[in-house]
């Protein structure tokens, strides 16, 4: 049945145009369901309207109190819907099994979700780049580059709370659950750039936990992979990169304009004394920054006691990476000074 109708049914107008192997099945099923709904809904409404008119209360008319029961009709309108929903269930279940059966020889991507950024690690160990995007609330987003016409497998973990990995164009969604791996696969069919959302509520910036998926040709994909493994030698450049790649930028502002986002701004605090939540003060220096990266809750900045807690980066950053970040944060003080 699927095959007979599949080519007759146009892809559903309201959907974003599809770019994965799941699209035909999902769109087909949804379209059919929609038509079934119409076939039920329209007659119901028409009947409602007609009865309202035909049997309206009016002088000299009194409806018959008969017609309280009719086995034939009642059985029909029980059995027919049953058959229909059984078919819908079957279609849906079959499609779902395709989605959950992961084929062999996939290209694997490690996905780590944390408040509030997606982090992607390619199987050559390289990490995603963060690039400027237009038509989005967030200026810069992580970019996940994938080759076209390949089976891709997402190996997903969460650092903190529940997230959900959702690419509308692929009709693919799977929750990312802390404390366990969840897997998601799809077959890319079309080059282009697609939106990636977090669809499980995860706190303040849930609605900014976005990313872009770039499906490209094999060659460009290889280029991207090669680019992904390099981190610049220059500590400052490297710090800049890590600041975005590690998701610091999702909470901590680094621009000259004042504090924004859930975390305190890096800008212009270097070398000064900063007030802490516990009332004391501390020098904002290498030592403090390092400690705050490894054990963030130890010395929370004043006014950020109620902010959503940052997780420790112990074991996630190499020592030289931490140094690079420190160099970067240190540099901000100078820019701010230049600003003055």
């Amino acid at each position, binding site marked *: 049945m699927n095959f007979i109708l599949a080519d007759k049914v146009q892809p559903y107008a309201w959907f974003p145009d599809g770019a994965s192997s799941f699209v035909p099945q999902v769109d087909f099923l949804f379209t059919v369901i929609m038509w079934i709904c119409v076939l039920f809904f329209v007659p119901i409404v028409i009947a409602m309207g007609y009865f309202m008119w035909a049997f309206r209360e009016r002088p000299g008319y009194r409806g018959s109190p008969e017609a309280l029961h009719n086995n034939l009709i009642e059985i029909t309108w029980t059995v027919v819907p049953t058959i229909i929903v059984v078919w819908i269930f079957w279609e849906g279940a079959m499609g779902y099994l395709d989605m959950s059966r992961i084929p*062999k020889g*996939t290209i694997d991507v490690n996905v*780590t979700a944390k408040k509030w950024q997606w982090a992607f*690690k390619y199987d050559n160990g390289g990490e995603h780049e963060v690039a400027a995007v237009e038509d989005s609330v967030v200026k810069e987003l992580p970019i996940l580059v994938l080759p076209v016409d390949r089976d891709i497998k997402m190996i997903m*973990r969460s650092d903190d709370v529940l997230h959900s990995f959702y690419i509308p164009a692929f009709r693919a969604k799977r929750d990312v659950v802390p404390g*366990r*791996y969840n897997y998601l696969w799809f077959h890319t069919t079309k080059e282009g750039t697609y939106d990636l959302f977090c669809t499980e509520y995860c706190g303040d910036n849930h609605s900014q936990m976005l990313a872009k998926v770039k499906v490209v040709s094999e060659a460009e994909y290889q280029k991207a992979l090669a680019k992904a493994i390099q981190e610049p030698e220059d500590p400052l450049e490297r710090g800049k990169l890590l600041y975005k790649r590690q998701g610091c930028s999702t909470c901590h502002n680094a621009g000259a304009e004042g504090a924004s986002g859930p975390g305190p701004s890096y800008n212009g605090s270097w070398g000064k004394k900063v007030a802490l939540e516990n009332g004391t003060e501390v020098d904002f220096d290498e030592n403090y920054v390092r400690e705050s990266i490894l054990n963030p809750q130890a010395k929370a900045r004043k006014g950020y006691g109620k902010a959503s807690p940052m997780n420790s980066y112990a074991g996630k950053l190499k020592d030289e990476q931490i140094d690079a970040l420190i160099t970067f944060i240190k540099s901000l003080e100078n820019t701010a000074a230049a600003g003055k």
Partner: protein
Amino acid sequence: MAHTNAHAENAHTDSHDVHHGHGSSHGDHHGFSHPMPIWMLLSVFFALLFLTGLTVFQAQFDLGNAEIWMSLIIATIKAGLVILFFMHLLWDKPLNAIVILGSLIFVALFLGFTLMDAEGYRENLIFKSTITESQPGYKDPATLAAEEAAAATGK
């Protein structure tokens, strides 16, 4: 009121024909107090004590997986005794029996589905040992992920 003598017969009727008597006892409205004979109370109590001793005793040996089932079966027998006799379910309105047994069905549903699902994703769990994480030899997430991936594609 003039019901006391009506009750007097009922009170001392032995519990069994109370059981039958119930459906038909519509005529008089006071057939609803059924004192339990003392011998029954006592024998149930001692049966319960005995069973308690039994579970403690069987817990001495390591029966492996059978052990939990053993103790659950014994516990269920005890629970059955309590419900049937101490709670008079044996002579109670069938509705009340249906009510309480029905609830057990829903408990079974709840546990059944939840555990079924939990079992399903068990191999995906990242076992978090709070010791090994902070120590040398600790695997960073990437390598763990690689291992897991290998395992997953293997299956």
